[in-house]
Structures are given as C-alpha cells and as structure tokens.
C-alpha cells in the first residue's frame, strides 16, 4: 500500500514537474507564463489515445505524432498568443491571450474528443507489477527531459543561445542572435515536453479534456514554489507536491488533499512570493 502511494506520488510529481518545466522553458524565452502549459499535457494524452487506440497506429508512431502535435501547439501559442503582446509586457495582456488560446484548444478537445475521460493504451507489452510502467514511464520521461535540457543548455551552442536570450534579451539581440526563431524553438521544445508528460502519464491521467485545467494549476505549483525559470527547483517541488497529494489522498481523502495543496501553495507564496528557491525582484522605479 505504502509502496503504491509512494510510486504514484512520485509518478504524478514527475508529470507536474514536466508541466512546470514546460512553463519554465516558455518563460525563459519570452518572460511570459502561458496558460497553455496544462493544455499541452492534455494534448499529449488525447493525441496518444487517438493515434494508438482509435487509429491503430503503432506505439512509436503514436508517440512521435503526439510529440509533434505538442510542438505544433507550442509554435502556434508563440505566434498567436505571445508574439503579438510581447511589445507591451507590462500590461500583462499575455495572461489573457494565452488564457484565450488555452480555452480554445481545451474546448475544441471537449467537443471533438468528448467530455468523458477515455482510456489510454498500455504502451509496453509487459506484465503488471507493483513498479508498473504507468509509474516508471513518467519518471523516465522526467529524467530524460532533465538530462536532455542540461545537455542542451550546457553543451551545445544552440543551448547557449537559449540561455543568452533568457538572461538578457536585448544584449542577445545586439549580438545578432535570431531572437524570434529561438523563441519559437523554445515554445516548440516546451510543447514537446508538455505533450511528453501527458503521453507518459496517460495511463494514470487518461485521455481527458479536463486534465488541461488540472495540469495548468498543479503544474504551476512547482514553478511558483521552485522559483520561476528554475528547472531543478520545479522537479523537487513537483515531487514533493505529488507525494504530498497522494499521501493526503490516502490519509484524508481527495477533497481535503486538494484543499491542503491549495492552502499550502497560497501560504508559501504569501510568505515568499518569489518561491522557496527564487530570488526577489529588482527595482520598480
């Protein structure tokens, strides 16, 4: 019993962390938090189920197509909802434009896919064990993403360019970096990461349109607590959140676990608005 709580807690935590990383990747490239982060997770689940169960494609094809769908969604987000409002960041129009796009995608899914949670295929033909694939797949996805991003950011020239954009947009442009293309690439990467979380976690979360709202909220908790733009913080906070939620689910029931998570989230942010691992903002005047 304890084992399954811990396993599902870590697995859910990994999904939240991945959504948090998707938030971060988009934020680093544009200084924008996008409401579409949870939608990417939803898309990963629904596209996976669509391609593999409904259309009968092989798992690997469904996997690649789901990730491609996520990347496409990321790029569309950048073009439709982020780029037009970047000029007036201080007006916070991005909150509204990304919210609008997220709602459009979610509603489209609700109408075309249906409002019931639909099954997600078992990806690997393995026997069910305690340490089942539905638990270790999200963990694997999270580990691969972390390592992949570290390699990208630290070892490759492209990654350095991403970091330069995140660190100082103006300076990076002055150096001649193709800021717009890098930003679109970042949103595509975020789309892949978001879709990966929904695909890898599909067996736990199912292919369900309302996952978008849930993941948008629970995926942001690690970002807020771990400090914005801080991927390691997001992973740690995501794991803590997942374990806490599953334990509370088991001990006091689902409702109170939600209330507890929400209350903890608010209290931590009230005490430290910059997050547990974040740095306070600079000048206002």
């Amino acid at each position, binding site marked *: 019993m304890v084992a399954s709580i811990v396993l599902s807690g870590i697995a859910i935590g990994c999904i939240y962390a991945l959504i948090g990383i998707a938030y971060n990747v988009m934020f680093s490239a544009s200084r924008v938090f996008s409401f579409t982060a949870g939608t990417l997770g939803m898309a990963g689940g629904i596209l996976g189920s669509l391609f593999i169960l409904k259309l009968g494609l092989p798992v690997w094809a469904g996997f690649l197509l789901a990730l491609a769908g996520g990347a496409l969604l990321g790029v569309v987000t950048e073009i439709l909802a982020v780029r037009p409002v970047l000029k007036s960041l201080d007006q916070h129009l991005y909150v509204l434009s990304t919210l609008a796009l997220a709602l459009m995608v979610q509603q489209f899914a609700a109408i075309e896919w249906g409002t019931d949670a639909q099954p997600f295929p078992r990806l690997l033909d393995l026997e069910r064990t305690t340490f089942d694939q539905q638990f270790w797949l999200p963990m694997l996805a999270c580990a691969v993403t972390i390592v992949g991003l570290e390699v990208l950011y630290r070892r490759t020239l492209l990654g350095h360019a991403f970091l330069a954009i995140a660190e100082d947009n103006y300076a990076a442009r002055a150096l001649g970096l193709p800021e717009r293309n890098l930003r679109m690439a970042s949103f595509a990467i975020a789309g892949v990461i978001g879709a990966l979380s929904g695909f890898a976690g599909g067996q736990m979360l199912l292919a369900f349109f309302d996952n978008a709202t849930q993941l948008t909220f629970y995926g942001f908790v690690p970002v807020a607590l771990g400090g914005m733009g801080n991927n390691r913080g997001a992973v740690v906070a995501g794991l803590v959140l997942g374990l806490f939620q599953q334990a509370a689910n088991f001990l006091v029931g689902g409702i109170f676990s939600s209330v507890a998570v*929400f209350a903890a989230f608010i209290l931590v942010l009230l005490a430290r608005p910059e997050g547990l691992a974040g740095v306070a903002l600079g000048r206002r005047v």
Partner: protein
Amino acid sequence: MDMSTTEARPARASVLSSLAASSALPWLVLAALAVTLPLFAGGYWGVIATRACVYWVLVAGLNLLVGFAGQLAIGWVALLTLGAYITAVVTAGQVMPALDPYLALALSGVAGAIFGVIVGLPALRLRTFYFAITTLGFATIVRQIVLAWSTVTGGGVGVPAPVFPPPFDSQWGFYYLCLIFAAVCTWMTINIAGSRFGRALTAIRDAEVAAEACGIAKPKLLMLVFLFSGATAAVAGGLFASLQSYITPDAFTTELSVLFFIGVLIGGRGSIIGPLLGTILLTVLPEFAAPLVAWSTFLYAVLLLVIVLVIPGGIADLLDFKNRRPLQTNRAIVPRPELLGRLLAQDQDPGTLTLEQVHLHFGGVRAIDGLDLTILPGQVHGLIGPNGSGKTTTLNVISGYYMPQRGRAVLKDAVLTQLSHYARAHLRIARTFQTPRIVGEASVIENVMIGGTIDGVGTFVESLLALPRHWQDEKKLRETAMLALSTVGLEQLAQVRADRLQHSELRFVEIARALMIRPAFLLLDEPAAGLSPEEIRRLGILCVEIAKHGTGVLLVEHHADLIFDICHHVTVLNLGKKLAAGTPAEIRSHREVVSAYLGG
C-alpha cells in the same frame, strides 16, 4: 489672473453638461428597454433577460476588480457557487430550520464578502499570473467541495432552490426583482467609478508606484473591493439558484467563470456600460445561434483573443467618440505660477527633510555610500551627478521604494525609513517620475485628481451610496485639480484622455498631480528631460515660484543650465557619495566637479 478662469468656466460647464447628456443617453435607452421588456418579448426572452440581470449583478462587482483594479480574477464562479448553495441550503430546511429567502440572500452576501477577501488576500503579494492561477485553483476546489460534501449540498444530485415570495414569484415578477438588483449594482459601481476610490483603483492598475506616492494604500482599497465584489457575486449566486429552481454542481462550470471575465474585457477596462453591454451580448449570443451552443465557450475564447489583439479597449473604446476628435496641434504649455497661492497655502512649518548617513547597496554595488543631505523648505535643492551616481536612488529612498541598509531619512519627528510607502503623501511629500506614471485611459483631470485622493473625507460606503460627503469630496477635488491644471498651463486639455498627450505635457500633468497634496517637499525626477528650451525655462520659473510658497523642491536633473539658474543649493553626487555641495556659483568653480562631470 481671475479673468481667464472666469472665461474658462462657462465653457467648461457646457462641456460637462453635454458630456453628461451624451453618456446618459445609452443608459436611458437600456433602462427603458429593460422596464418595458414584458410588453414586447415572450416568456422565453424573459428567462434570458433575467439571466442577463443575474450575471450582471456579479459582473458589475467583478468589473471593479478586473476592469478598474486590474486584478485578473478568472475564477469568480466560485463565489457564485458559494452564494447559490448557501441560499439554497438555508432555505431548503434540510440541514437547519428554513430561513426567509431574503435573509438567505443577505447571508450569502455576507459569506461572499468574507470569501471574497480570502480569495483576494494573495493579490496583495502576488503578481498577475500568480493571482489568476490562485483564483482558478479556488474555483476548482469549491467545485470539488460541493461535489463531495453531499450531506449538505446534495453532491451530484443537487438541492432545490427557493422561490421568492409574491409579487416576485411569477416569471416576470422575478425578472423585475433581478432587474432591481442589477440596477442597484449598476448605480453603486457608477458611484464608485466616479469617486476617488475608482480613480485610485485605476491608478493601482496602471501606475502602481504613482498611486503609492499619492498616498493610496493598496491593501486597504483592494480589500474593500474584494468585499464588495465577493458580496455581489454571492447575491448573484442566490438569484441564480432561484432562477435555476434546482442547482447541481454542473451548473457552475469554468465556462461560466470565463463568460463573466470575458464580459468585463470585451466591455473594456475602466468602463461600466461597456461590460454591461458585453454581459448582455454574451448571454444573448448563443440564443441567436442555436447550433453553436456547444461551441459558445470556444467562441468566447476566440472573442477574447480578438479583443486582446485587435481592440484592447473593448466596446467602451469603440463608443468613445469624444476622444477621436483631433487635438489642436502646436499646443504650448504656459504655466501660471501666480495661481500657486491658492493651491499651496502652507498652514504650518514643514520642518526640514534630512538624510543621515544613508548606505544602500545592491549586492556588491554601492548605490548610496554614506550620504548626508538636508533639504530646507522654501528652497530649490539641485541634485546632479553622472549616470549611476545615485540621484534617483536617493529619491527612491526618500519615497520609500528602497530600504537603506544603514542610516535614515527624517522629516520633523517622523523617521521616513520606518514608514510604509504611502505614508509619504500624508507627510506632504510629493514626487514625479523619470518616465511619467499616468493612467492613460483616464482623462487628464482625473489623473490630477488622483493626487488629491488622501484629502477626501467620505468613506468607501458613502461613495458607494452617493451620500453628501461623496459629492462634497468630488466637487472640491475637481475644483482643486482644475486649479492645479491651470497652474501648470494644461486646463485646455482637462477632459482629454491622458494617453493622447505629448511627453512634455505628461511631465506637467505629473507636477499638477504632485501639487494636489499641497507638498511640503516636492521631489522632481528629471522633469526637464524631453522638454523644449522654452518649456524648460517655464518649468524653471514654476519651480522657483513653488519654492517661494514654502515648499522644499528637490530637483534631480541633467540640464546643468537649469540647475545653476534656479537652485539655491546644489549637491553633486558621484558613485553614491557627495562630491561637492554649495551654492551654484561655488559648484561651478569646484575643480573636481568640473573635471568629473561638467567638463571644460
């Protein structure tokens, strides 16, 4: 001097009355349509109209929060749910003895106000996206609680809702009840919008730092608005329950929340009639396109995206014909310092403003490194130095935006560095900013009136109900603001939207706003930047005249000529330290200053 003001007055009065007439017309049309609706519309439209009224009761309050204060509360359906269930549960008589429906509605309102504040608390510390997410989280949780707490809420099965006693028990009777609530909410929000509280809310939204410098206490004001919009949302919930006659959690979807939120934004920020039309539009729209009902939320979202990208001003902006008339070009700003006497009556000794051994560093950078500074009343004190020498930082320490690690700022008996930002205005310390901080969508005179916020005596509730003190405050503020505008030479532009002004004019608007608090000390941050030589000369005269009325002026400037012309005393900063201090003549011949800064 009086001749020109008396000349201006009749013109102003006629402008105001025609303005009032043009803005009253749509309201009269709407009211007439609403009251006579049963004469020409069938019963089904009655239900739709009732629904629009109920929605508006909520949106009216939410509008103050979203449209005026700029707080992105996207999960406000939570409070509708709360109000609906409280009303239904306490009148059903299942859990407790049944209450009268009106009492239940009042009880919902009180509970809504309390929860409004609870949801709102994070807004005091969290920025936009964070707050939006927390309201979304709150909405999710309320829904889960309603589903799970089935002994009280009936869970997924739901609970029956009350019918209001005669004459409001028939369909049209209930319509009129909701219409009364909607009309009262409209009236109250119009009152607030036109009061110093409404202007303060837009200042918090668009120019938070300036709002603080004007003495607006954001936490207190926001809490009042959260109380109000929480209460109206919960009352709307009670009416909504009665309209539905039986409520289940399915009635309170995220889509509904989105409808409310988008209604405000389609209407336009800082408007009342815009969001009202927006709400009616969103309520009625699906009825015209029956096959599209399933797609309605999708369409709302599309509409939101289009509004944000194409017409950020919303419906209100489309209706704002007044501000499309071209402004006169070649406008000149001609201040009339002779009016200052009526504006700046110093009733008591302002004391001196002193900085004592102030140290402030950001990480390894020493922005201010042991600065002593004394600013005397009735003098113009110049603060100059190369970029990065700590001039604006010094102003920010006085204004309270930075907390020095060591040292303190003192005015008379008050230690400034121990007080909150917005306490400065009460001590009559005013300031302007390097980049003008203005509410672009408000008129020039409204922007200036923001400066006088702390001089109002009426409370929020008095403004809400338009009691006499509200009118007295408004009259006095408007007159003083007009006087301040005449003083800086911008009275012609009083009714124009502030974002249509030129940069140089905005600088003078900021000075007018600062004059509204009858400053004992006036901090000007590069007021001459972007001004023409003639405007700089007039600005100089204005500064000198302000000082003659007993105000201490601290002037941060790069225009050395202006500084040497008008200052009584000049302090030169370099790398956060005082390089030299003295009269302009002494500074001009100071060897180090000349080599480090002035050149030649």
